[in-house]
């Protein structure tokens, strides 16, 4: 019922938005958006990568741009992380839109999709790999079915020549379960709010935005048959404790942060540099009446992004993006379990150690070159990029520890060609990527009792996933056909993407990605 309510509500909003935009349209016979319109719009402004919603004012929005689509994504193969399924199938609905109304620029998107992870094991949580190694899993696994609603809205107000103010709101909710014992039942919600301002003086801009986010996931495990299963409470680097209990598990995360932006808009080049920082605390507890803390996970993250646009991007886009990311994650675990005291039935306090340590840095550079036809089409384009990743992780048994150092680099490239024919608008792309680790190792404890608390397959698989050489090659094709609906020219389109990954991990696993998207640009 909830799904039907959400979809009904959304369709009403969509139709209303569409009619409002149509009423404000000054040229009803022109093509509003094509296959490339949104990507060109984002390429032409360095502010498109900014966290600051007020930066939406720096996108050139001459009119509305909208897209509504249904999609099908499938990835399948043995090249996957330990807690990922062998096959991951998604299908759903996606729409987004930009519009300009007086002094306001708006952006919104909405998606609903269903996700089926087949042959999924060792995970009973919605997202296994989101910088939180404290997950729950079982060794039975099966077909994990999830549904997500994701809504995002941005608004930016051009107060005057100097000041732009904006905000962004994002809400995501998801549910998940398996249809075979043991059955995790997940309910996840995530709400994010980011207010921001940008102040401009001549060619210079200074921006500031804040970020507040709350997220929660409840995990229950249900059984139809009255059997007992082993549940693994993972803690990072394969370390786990196991139990037969099916306590309610809750994960509540709170994030506070912000970002500073510096912009320059000259004739030779434009630049937007953003430094952002956030601190996230995730509190994981077990039990209902008197919940016991599993861990308090702290995540400190700093990102620096700098985007350069060389020359005037009217006919040619020459765009360089440099990024740096720094993360520190700490897992504070009780080493003295809270315990009910016999005399007074109260729970004694717990002492904690920081047992999980993780630090990582990522440096990347991407260069885009596009020859444009106009704001809706390009002639051809290419992207080249590279990334260097380093991380160190430790899980302390005290004084022994499991430790891992992981370093890898990747290089990627893509070439795109758009052709405008009398029949249709066509886009072809071929792309590739190569990734390989270097100077990486992991070392597990020798002590037998402690080693039994480590899932060595978990550590080895996820280490090799990144460390072993991986080659990726892909091709995309997009077909767009102009149609007229309600006196409006629109574009019906189909995007198809095929990617294959080949890994040099043990047994040389591979993975195939197929993405199909069918919709209307309006």
């Amino acid at each position, binding site marked *: 019922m909830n799904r039907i309510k959400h979809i009904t509500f959304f369709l009403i909003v969509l139709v209303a938005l569409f009619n409002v935009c149509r009423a404000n349209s000054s040229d009803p016979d022109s093509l509003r958006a094509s296959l490339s319109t949104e990507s060109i719009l984002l390429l032409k402004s360095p502010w498109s990568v900014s966290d600051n919603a007020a930066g939406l004012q720096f996108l050139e929005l001459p009119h509305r741009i909208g897209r509504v689509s249904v999609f099908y994504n499938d990835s399948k193969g043995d090249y996957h992380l330990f807690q990922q399924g062998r096959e991951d199938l998604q299908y759903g609905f996606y729409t987004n839109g930009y519009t300009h109304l007086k002094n306001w620029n708006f952006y919104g998107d909405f998606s609903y999709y269903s996700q089926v992870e087949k042959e999924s094991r060792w995970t009973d949580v919605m997202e296994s790999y989101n910088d939180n190694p404290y997950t729950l899993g079982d060794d039975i696994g099966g077909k994990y079915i999830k549904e997500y609603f994701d809504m995002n809205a941005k608004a930016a107000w051009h107060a005057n020549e100097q000041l732009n103010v904006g905000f962004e709101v994002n809400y995501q909710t998801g549910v998940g379960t398996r249809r075979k014992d043991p059955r995790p039942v997940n309910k996840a919600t995530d709400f994010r709010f980011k207010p921001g301002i940008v102040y401009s003086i001549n060619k210079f801009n200074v921006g500031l935005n804040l970020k507040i986010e709350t997220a929660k996931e409840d995990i229950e495990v249900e059984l139809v048959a009255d059997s007992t299963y082993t549940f693994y409470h993972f803690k990072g680097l394969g370390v786990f404790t196991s139990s037969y209990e099916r306590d309610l598990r809750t994960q509540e995360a709170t994030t506070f942060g912000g970002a500073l932006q510096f912009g320059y808009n000259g004739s030779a080049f434009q630049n937007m540099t953003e*430094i952002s920082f956030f601190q996230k605390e995730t509190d994981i507890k077990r039990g209902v009446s008197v919940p016991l803390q599993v861990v308090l996970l702290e995540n400190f993250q700093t990102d620096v992004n700098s985007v350069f646009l060389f020359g005037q991007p009217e006919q040619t886009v020459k765009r360089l993006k440099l990024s740096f990311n720094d993360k*520190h994650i700490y897992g504070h675990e009780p080493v003295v*379990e809270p315990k*009910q005291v*016999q005399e007074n*039935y109260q729970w004694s306090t717990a002492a904690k*150690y*920081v047992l999980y340590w993780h630090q990582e840095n990522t440096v990347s550079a991407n260069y885009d070159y596009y020859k444009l036809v106009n704001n809706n089409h390009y002639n051809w384009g290419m992207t080249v990029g590279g990334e260097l990743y380093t991380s160190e992780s430790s899980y302390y048994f*005290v004084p022994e520890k499991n430790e891992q150092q992981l370093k890898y680099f990747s290089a990627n490239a893509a070439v795109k060609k758009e052709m405008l024919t009398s029949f249709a608008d066509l886009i072809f792309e071929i792309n590739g990527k190569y990734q390989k680790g270097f100077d990486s190792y992991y070392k597990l404890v020798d002590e037998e009792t402690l080693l039994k608390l480590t899932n060595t397959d978990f550590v080895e698989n996820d280490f090799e996933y990144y460390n072993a050489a991986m080659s990726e090659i892909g091709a995309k094709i997009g077909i767009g056909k102009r149609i007229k609906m309600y006196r409006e020219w629109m574009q019906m389109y189909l995007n198809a993407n095929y990617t294959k990954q080949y890994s040099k991990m043990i047994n040389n696993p591979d993975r195939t990605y197929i993405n199909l998207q069918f919709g209307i640009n309006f």
Partner: protein
Amino acid sequence: MFLFACEKYDIPQTYDFDISVYYPDSLFNAAPLPNATIEIVNKQTGRKYSQFSDENGNVHFEVRGGLYDISVSSKQNYLFEIDGKPTYKDILFHETVFDRKILAATQLTLQTTLTILNSGFVISEFYNSGSRTPEGESYSRDQFIEIYNNSDITLFADGLCFGNVWYKNTYTPNPLLNPDGSFPSDIACWSYIAVIPGSGTDYPIDPGESFVIAQSAINHRDDPNGNPNSIDLSGSDFELFIEDGRYVDNPGVANANMIQVHERPFANVMVFNVHGQSSIIFRIPDNNFQAFFGNAENYIIATGSTDRCVLVPDSWIIDGIENPELNPTVYKRLPNNIDSGYIQHRGKGEKVSIKRKVQKVVDGRVILMDTNNSSNDFLTNQEPTPGIIESE
């Protein structure tokens, strides 16, 4: 706010943990106890550290902060005079501490208590979880206890009593403790007490032999009302048959004498908690059953319930097993002098038993582990094998 994050915490360190152990007050003026095995176990990681105490009764560990279970044991052989004959008996000096917090350098002093080891009957296998039918229903009539002669002489099972300790929920405090938190000197058993029949020499058990007491001594796999997933108990030595009770009598298997403990109409079977059951075996002096079971002063109504229990003096108890239900929080039902540890199994319907470990094999005779601590002495979640004593 925008500074790069840096390491703001210290890497967790170990702490010095020193333990000194002593004889009981009644022996050697409570002198230091040398050469005792001192084992500490971290409750979260399961990591064990084991050392022998030095001549001053001291040991030193370096451990991470956390909760620890600590056990001390030292078995020594002393000469006694029994029935006018000099007899060597093993005395176990032992002490156990649960959930000791170590959050800084710690010095712990432990005075041991002594137990004269019976070198006789011990519980070798205990199966109370029950199994599941192919339809997934719980099936508990296949429970059994196996008792083993761990000595080097023939013992007689005649008159041996077996009782289940009144449990309530073992994750809540034991309501039968003394006001100061200590255990009373009597153990409360409920439901029925099973007494092995015989005049005193009818049921000899040779060294290294065992006997099985079954809830219902049938082949549960083949029985029309049985469970193909269960086990064969038709070879049991005794069964817990109750007149007009729930289970049929197997005339080929001797029935234990069932002493009803409860007053009101209740379960017409001897009740074992399938989630976990603490149990004892004991002998009544001079086999004076009528005097003991016929005396109303030996019964109580358990605190907070209407359950009638019989109080068994702990000095009569030969062996006991503390088997609380599966929960991180455990409140013991047996004092340390009967079982200084505890052992849990997976739970209801799991078809798992608890088996005593083999300490050694001497001239083909298996000697089972008996340190008065079921945490050390038993293996849990084992395949039930009634009547079979494994040698490894």
